């Protein structure tokens, strides 16, 4: 087997295209129906909102909601076919590698969904504002799909989406709710571990008998309640920066790749 054949046995753009085409043909009707329903509701709400106080950033909350709910729920169902009695054997024995199957589902539910949502919101807001201005002579701000804030929100979605992609292959049934639950439990566990580390590493810096565990104050972002002396305040600020950096690296650089790798191995282990 030469090198090209060896690579072709792991990844082939042709087979990836076939898998994407298959997903598109099987799914486009459902997507169109969902878009029509959401678009109709948005147009209606936009019209009704003109009776109150028009103007301002009307569409962003809907965009965030669509990404957070629509995106994560649909991501949770991308591997449903791998778990079902009839479609499971068909999908798993379809000639494509695990990598191609994972990448095809990942592309559709991550970049594909985020890009489609940005374009959809831009289109709906344009249509809605045309109607608003024609009817009321005024309207809301147009949704700008290339605004930095909106692209940043899409990037956050791409990271969170990887957790739900893993949930989709991990859980056979009710994947979305189970992933939310698992994410909450893991999130709480991480926070507790972080607090313990924080207490162990930085506790001695506090002058009045160490840190208290008043959660309301812990998360207020205001360290004054800990009665720091001036000298240690700089150390604590530096510590918080280090924690912040670790958190950002974990979120932006490690979380998604970890979920993708875990999803790959889980797909590898899937039996029907």
């Amino acid at each position, binding site marked *: 087997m030469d090198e090209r054949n060896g690579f072709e046995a792991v990844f082939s753009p042709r087979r990836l295209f*076939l898998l994407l085409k298959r997903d598109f043909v099987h799914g486009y009707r459902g997507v169109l129906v969902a878009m029509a329903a959401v678009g109709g509701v948005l147009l209606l709400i936009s019209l009704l909102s003109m009776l109150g106080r028009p103007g301002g950033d009307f569409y962003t909350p809907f965009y965030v909601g669509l990404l957070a709910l629509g995106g994560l729920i649909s991501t949770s169902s991308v591997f449903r076919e791998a778990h079902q009695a*009839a479609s499971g*054997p068909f999908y798993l*024995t379809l*000639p494509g590698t*695990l990598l191609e199957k994972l990448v095809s589902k990942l592309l559709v539910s991550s970049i594909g969904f985020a890009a489609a949502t940005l374009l959809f919101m831009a289109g709906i807001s344009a249509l809605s504002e045309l109607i608003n201005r024609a009817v009321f002579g005024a309207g809301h701000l147009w949704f700008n799909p290339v605004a930095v804030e909106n692209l940043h929100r899409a990037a956050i979605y791409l990271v969170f989406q990887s957790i739900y992609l893993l949930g989709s292959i991990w859980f056979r049934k009710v994947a979305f709710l189970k992933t939310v639950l698992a994410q909450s439990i893991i999130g709480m566990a991480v926070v507790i571990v972080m607090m313990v580390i924080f207490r162990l590493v930085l506790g001695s810096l506090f002058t009045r008998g160490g840190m208290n565990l008043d959660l309301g104050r812990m998360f207020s972002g205001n360290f004054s309640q800990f009665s720091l002396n001036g000298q240690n305040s700089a150390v604590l600020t530096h510590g918080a920066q280090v924690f912040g950096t670790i958190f950002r690296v974990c979120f932006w650089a490690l979380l998604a790749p970890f979920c993708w790798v875990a999803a790959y191995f889980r797909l590898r282990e899937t*039996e029907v």
Partner: protein
Amino acid sequence: MIEIKDLTFGYGRQKLFDHLDLSLERGNIYGLLGKNGAGKTTLLKLICGLRYAQTGSIRVLGHDAAFRPVHMLDEIISVPEELFIPPLLPRVYLSLYAPFYPRFSHDEFRTCMTELELEQDKKLSSLSYGQKKKFALAFALASGCRVLLLDEPTNGLDIPSKGQLRRLLARASRDDRVILVSTHQVRDMENLIDPIIVLDQGRIIFNQPMAEVTKRLSVRLEPTEPQGDSILYADRTIGGWVSVRRNTGTEETGIDLETLFNTVIANPGKLSEIFGASRTTEPTEVHNG
């Protein structure tokens, strides 16, 4: 082409296969027979990598089935009893799935569709179970795959379609291809499947070509109930009793698959003696629980 060695598999604590060995050679249409729950469907799933062996190995065309490598998947196609047929037109289905199989023959597909009297312009979801089955079989036969796994292929087919399927399968048999048919409907597969493999209590208790069967077993129709140790199997039928004995002469008599299956199930030990241990797997201990 398919090599199963020392396979152990079970669901939970219940062992289904215990150190099972099986070798399937190219150029044959194997019939896999067994009682309900014998593990026929599970064995097919293990062969195409949908289930993983607990111990032992399954190699298909030299590939480890458990890894589901792509060059195994494009050479193996399975028509399960529970079908997945998406709501598409046949031509759309073909445009989506045929390119996955490098040797897919559109001419062969058209021939199969015509012979099985399937309409090309009807949505697949609107077809009856039997028609969906025929469509899946037509696709599988046209796929060009070297390994075809068919689970109860005649279930749901009408009487003419069963004959058409037999003809298509006979034509699809090639020197470089192995077809494994798991079925309870042995009469539907009469004169087609050969060799015959019988699976019982997690082991292969019989694996013989029909030529060997007719050479070593003798079937007679007798007016009264046959008696004696030489009787391997006897069953009342219209006009008397069908009896199966060891063939001690040179004359060969035909045996239908149902009678053969019942004989094997009734007397696995004696059959093993008659056919020798070379092809029939010796019974091994099965541990349940």
